[in-house]
Every structure is written in C-alpha cells, then in structure tokens.
C-alpha cells in the first residue's frame, strides 16, 4: 500500500507538471539539431545555464529563434553565427579557437605543463637527497663490515 502511494505521489510530483515546450519538427534530424543547438547556447541572463536549461524569458526567445531558423532550413553553423553576431562568442558554450579565446583554450594546457615540470623538478631533487642519505648509510655499513672483517682476521 505504502509503495503504491509512493508511486502515485511520484507520478504527480511537480516535475511532471514542469513546463514542456511543444515543438513540431519536420524531420528527426531537425529535432536533433534543435536539441544540440539549445544545449550549446548560453543563456546570457543566467550565465551558467544553457538555453535548454533556463526558463528565463531570454532563453525562451532564443529557443524560439533557433526553432524558427531551423524551420527556415538554416544550418547549425548559420544559426551559431547568427547568435555570435549578436551576443558574441560568450553565447557559445564551445567557443571557437581565436586570438581572443586563446587563453581560454591554451591556459589549462599551460598550467598542466607547469604542474608537470614542477613535479619532475621537485621529485628529482627529493630523489637526489634520498640517494646521498642512502650512500651515507652504505658508507657506514661498509666501514662496519670492514671493521668486523679486520677484527675477524686479528682474532
């Protein structure tokens, strides 16, 4: 009974009533393009959401624009260009590689390289220290063995 109740409650949970935009597409390819595009475009009002995630007015307008342009037979690239012409590269979650966005793309790689170089430098230095300490011990051991051997010979 309890499980049944839970099931019913789940079925009527708020999520089920969340706004779903009904859009009719001419072809499955077009629907696919629409889904990809709205996942790649940033909502500029709520900056860390895509226009697919956001329900801000602007996101709704941008979705409408994408839909209409697809209906007009525009390609994905044409729509992306349309958006960047108006909102700049910031509107794309996957911005193109340009002089302006270079730091964005190369930055992480540079930091990774710096990290790797540091790692190598520091681990080498540590290794060197360990080696000398070991050889010190070895020297002591050798001296001890020598002494023992000498003692043996004498006795």
């Amino acid at each position, binding site marked *: 009974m309890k499980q049944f109740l839970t099931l019913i409650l789940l079925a009527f949970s708020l999520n089920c009533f969340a706004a779903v935009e009904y859009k009719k597409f001419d072809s499955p390819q077009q629907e696919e393009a629409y889904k990809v595009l709205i996942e790649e475009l940033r909502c*500029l*009002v709520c*900056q860390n959401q895509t226009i697919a995630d956001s329900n801000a*007015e*602007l996101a709704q*307008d*941008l979705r409408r*624009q994408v839909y209409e342009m697809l209906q007009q037979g525009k390609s994905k690239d044409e729509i992306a260009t349309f958006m*960047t*012409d*108006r*909102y*700049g590269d*910031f509107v794309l979650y996957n911005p193109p590689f340009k002089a302006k966005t270079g730091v964005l793309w190369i930055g992480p790689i540079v930091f990774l390289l710096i990290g790797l170089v540091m790692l190598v430098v520091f681990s080498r230095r540590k290794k060197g220290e360990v080696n000398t300490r070991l050889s010190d011990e070895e020297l002591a051991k050798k001296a001890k063995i020598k002494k023992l051997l000498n003692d043996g010979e004498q006795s």
Partner: protein
Amino acid sequence: MLKYIIPLILFMVMAGFLAMGLNLNPRDIPSPLINKSAPGFSLPILATPEKVLSNTDLSGQVWLLNVWASWCGSCRTEHPVFNQLAQKNLVTIVGLNYKDEASAAKQWLAQLGNPYNVSIMDQEGRTGLDYGVYGVPETFVIDKKGIIRYKHTGPVSVKDVQEILLPLINQLKAEV
C-alpha cells in the same frame, strides 16, 4: 632568501588576478555590434501604434537607443537620469519598449515622465534579439551614419552620462 621571495611573488600575482576577477562585472559582455551598423527595425510607435518608426528615419543624426520596460526594476533607477538628459535637448533619445504591454508602458511614462523623443514597441523581443539585448536596461549610442559606437549594459548613472555619454555624443555630433 629566494626561498621566501618566490612564494611571496607567486602569492601576489595570484592575489592580483583574483582582485581583477572580483572587480570584473560578469554582466558586462562586450557587444560584437560595436562599430557595426545598427540592426534594422520597423516598429509601431507606442503613442501612435498605427505609425511605425524605422532605423532609417533616424539617419543623419546622433541618437540613443534606450531599451526599457515597465516590468524592469533598474529601469526605474535609471529613469531620472534620462529625464535630466532629455531636458538638455542634446540628442534624440529613442526608447525601445522591450517585451512590455502598451498600457503598462504608457502608464509608466505618465507616472515617471517621458524622456523619449519617441518610444517604439518590441513586444516579441525580436528587435531586442537583433541588438543582442540580454539585460534591460541597455543603452546604445548610434552615430549619424547609423553605426553603433557604444553600448552600456545596465542602468546609466549620472556619472556615466557626464563622463562617457556626453563627451561621446559631442564627439559624434562633430563628425560629418
């Protein structure tokens, strides 16, 4: 000694970048429209909806396009600034009434004063989209040739008018 200086320098560089990041305004997204032709429009006038205004009607003069709406809170903050600017009669101010209801917009202007030479209605937000509007209020400065020369996102302050808008307007008016 170097052992202590290097981390100190690293720390200062990092602190510098973080301080810069804190002072940046994430809402200030550079508009790709600067120094490009103002997107065309042909929209009904708020006061007389049977008439339309096109961007071409404004060519040959320096004009401001101020995007506003009665539902927008910071437009209220900005409004007195525009009222003041309008009194100086230096520049044509066009209001783009963005995604608003005509009746609410008219009431808003009646209550707070109307600094606009003309307001046009963009109820579906299509012209707004062409101008890359994402946060009302926004203000564009357009020159005599119809080129966007400056964009201000967010409410314009008295200081912005004195230090940025007025000098720019004077400069653009002097251009042929």
